[in-house]
């Protein structure tokens, strides 16, 4: 029964998605900045491909910010027309869902389980992931690559995992922040140890060969990218954008309005502060959850989705869909209703206020900005609650009886 559910529901969702891709809906979402940022938009990719095919350097200007690797892939192997591209996106969605199901299986240490279909559905039917995929945002590819690298490291296929992550980091350099927990995952196991915290039993030095392997892949891919374009201009055009935020196109994140309104002489300082802030979470999470690096990785993805520079809906979407892999924390979530309502609130307000400001002209930028704040609160609340539950689990369920309370000292 459950296996048929998996075999029927998943193809059905994929087919529906494909059907939607050819409907009017994909035209409506084509230029929507909440679904695809300037760094992941398909229109920009097509523009870059057009320039590339007409032997104009796409990186000479300032609007094309995709990796040269995507340029190479889409100008040769993958189709780039609006007719055939949806097939590629549905394929990457399927890969992402398959990887997530395999992560779940590896965490439970089973070959297949009754929840496989649910987990795949939670990934494929998550509106935060579905809509960017319909808009043909390349964040779908980035998410699939991150999930693939996690899946391979759960399965102890270190080279495949590191290669997938190196490729993902080429597309979006922030993905490299997930390298430390991924390396820990490679030297430990993906099973749940949240209930029984213990210090890391293996030497951290065992990660060093993997680290070297990652950098080797990364260097080779960087070199390939340079071969594609012929010079190094692409580095500042793609990765540099994450640091300089030249494009302040609205998105559901926190950076764009902050740096639209920022005084020019404070801009470098706050750019530095925001970037460093992102990096501060990596090491503490790895230390705290050294007994369960998969959980650390999950929390880190949630924080990146909340605080990164050019987020789209698909970044928090990846975190929310991954939540399904950790059912053991569900009983300990403190304010799941509040978080859900905040998300509902933000999900309704974001498109509404975006439309009122930019299309109707009846609202101003502050309305949309306010809803991005609500969205950040919703994402932050979800991450904080998961963090609390992941640590609270260790105390046990029956410890709050006879006048005993669990508190933090």
């Amino acid at each position, binding site marked *: 029964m459950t296996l048929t559910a998996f075999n029927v529901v998943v193809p059905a969702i994929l087919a529906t998605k494909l059907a939607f891709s050819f409907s009017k809906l994909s035209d409506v979402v084509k*230029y929507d900045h909440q679904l695809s940022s300037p760094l992941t938009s398909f*229109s920009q990719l*097509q*523009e870059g491909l*057009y*320039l590339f095919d*007409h032997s*104009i350097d796409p990186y*000479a*200007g*300032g*609007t094309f910010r995709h990796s040269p690797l995507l340029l190479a892939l889409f100008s040769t192997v993958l189709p780039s027309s609006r007719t055939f591209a949806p097939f590629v996106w549905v394929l990457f969605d399927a890969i992402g869902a398959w990887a997530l199901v395999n992560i779940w299986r590896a965490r439970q240490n089973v070959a297949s389980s009754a929840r496989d279909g649910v987990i795949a559905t939670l990934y494929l039917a998550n509106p935060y992931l579905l809509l960017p995929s319909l808009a043909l945002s390349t964040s779908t590819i980035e998410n699939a690559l991150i999930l693939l690298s996690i899946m391979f490291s759960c399965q102890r296929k270190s080279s495949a995992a590191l290669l997938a992550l190196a490729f993902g980091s080429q597309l979006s350099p922030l993905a490299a922040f997930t390298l430390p927990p991924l390396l820990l995952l490679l030297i430990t196991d993906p099973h749940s140890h949240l209930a029984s915290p213990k210090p890391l039993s293996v030497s951290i030095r065992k990660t060093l060969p993997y680290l070297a392997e990652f950098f080797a892949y990364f260097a080779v891919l960087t070199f390939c990218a340079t071969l594609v374009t012929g010079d190094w201009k692409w580095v500042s055009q793609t990765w540099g954008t994450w640091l300089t935020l*030249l*494009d*302040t*196109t*609205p998105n559901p994140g*926190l950076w764009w*309005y*902050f*740096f*639209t*309104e*920022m*005084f*020019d002489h404070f801009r470098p300082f706050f750019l530095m502060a925001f970037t460093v*802030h992102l990096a*501060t*979470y990596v090491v*503490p*999470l790895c230390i*705290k959850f050294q007994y369960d690096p998969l959980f650390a990785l999950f929390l880190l993805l949630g*924080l990146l989705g*909340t*605080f990164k520079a050019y987020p789209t809906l698909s970044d928090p979407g990846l975190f929310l869909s991954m939540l399904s892999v950790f059912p053991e924390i569900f009983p300990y979530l403190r304010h799941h209703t509040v978080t859900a309502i905040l998300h509902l609130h933000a999900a309704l307000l974001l498109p509404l206020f975006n439309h009122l*400001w*930019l*299309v109707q002209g009846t609202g*101003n*930028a*502050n309305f949309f*900005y306010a809803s991005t*704040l609500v969205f*950040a*609160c919703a994402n*932050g609340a979800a*991450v*904080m609650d998961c*963090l609390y539950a992941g*640590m609270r689990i260790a*105390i046990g369920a029956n*410890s709050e009886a*006879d*006048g*005993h*309370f*669990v*508190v*933090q*000292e």
Partner: protein
Amino acid sequence: MVLLPRLYLALIVLGASIPCRAGLSEYFNEKLTLTPLRDGKVASTFSFSTLLKGGSPRDPSQLGEDDESQHYTLFPLGLGQILREYGVAELHLSLNAGKWNYDRWGYPLEPGVGTGAELWAWLGDGGVRSVDDRWKGLRSALAGLFCSSLSRLDEHRTTSPAETFKPEGSLPETSHHQLRHASLPSENVCTENLTPFLKLLPCKGLSGIATLLNPHKLFDANWHGLGVHVLWHKDEGVEVRLTFQGIFDPLRSAYVRKQDWSFESLFARKIEKACPVANSSEILVTLPQTGEYSISPEPTSIRNSMAVYDTKLVQKPLNLAMSWPHDFDHLAASSTREPLTSLSLQRTLRESSQLDGHLTVSLTNHKDTSTDVLYLETMPWIVQFYLHTLVATVEGRVKVDAVSNISYIPAIPHSRPTTFQAVLSIPPNSTLQLTMDVSKAFLRYTEHPPDAQRGWDLPPAIIMPLDDKLNSPRLYTPNILVDLATPDFSMPYNVIIFTCTVISFIFGSIFNLMTRKFVIVQMDPKESK
């Protein structure tokens, strides 16, 4: 022995005369062309040309050294100093207001009729100061000279489309020359620009044709614009041509029924005396080919169906007047007639939101032969092209081979504009429509002008027919207004505070959770009461 002092004297005189450029002679010619248009309006073109015989542009490699001293009698010193300071080989500045209607007014005598300010110059390469540095200085100097915001023609506006803006004079062969072009469509032309313009003329506005440059009337015209052109002719010298064009409407008042005009009605002035230093001073009036009319006074001569008046010869005060016996037939003038130019242009930006838009350029070829044109867009970075959506259609059908030889320099956000150039071939008697999606940028709040909600003027596209004569006229499309999304200008502090609060709240909560241990405490219910 007696000869010796004389020899000394001769040497002193000779030595003094060399740096004074005393050998250069200067010629001043002025010309006014008046053309009654078929819609009842009157096109007038003033042209004041000063030729510095034997002069040549300054060699850019000598810019670091002291320049030879400049002594002019007719040549404008203020402009001459700027030209020598920045080593300018050729310069064209125009400041216009209004939309030139090619269909009804035909080709203008001075081709630079794009709305707003347009400046382009050819500068020699080499020497201590770079071309861009001198271009910047030139902009600022001209801004000061003409009391205009030309310094805003900065690197956000500067392009180098050398195919469209070919030098009209000759360029010195000693160094390689580069073009710099910039336009500022929101710049206006007004009295404050005309006053310094008049000061550059040898007779100012006191005598000769320049008497007619009455700001009250000129800036009331339907279309008006002034131009400054500096050219170097290899065998002649440096020429400065100051021009003023205007389209006047004698029929503007509802009580006027005839298209009669005179100097008195157009300019509220007469020519009282001729400019004494002018070599030639001519007024040309295009005589209508059909209908009855009268012109007074009697022209000095008739040349190519144009009445020619020499202001030195005719009786003064001169109040040239044309009159028609019958009322002007508005119905006949407004009914559809063949356009006066072989090409009609239209450019629109359709937009449903502040995210993106749809740029459409329509070119209609009225000739019986197919024509090739060079199409140039110099778009500030605030509007970015999606070239992959470029579609050319002829009468509704997609025509792939209509666009060729695309050259494209993409924009750089917060600095360089886009330069897009392509050759379009338009079939005979048909309309070529070019459409393209564009995306609009989101600016930082300090980049918005004070009147941010007004929108941004985009510079005109320039069309140049290729199959005509060698020096084919440039055609300017009307400029368009783009509506960019604006942030709230009143709350930078609030945004900084709100965002930082949310981030620090989440950051604080997470590190609070991670750094503190979970413990079980016993609370005695009795004690707590």
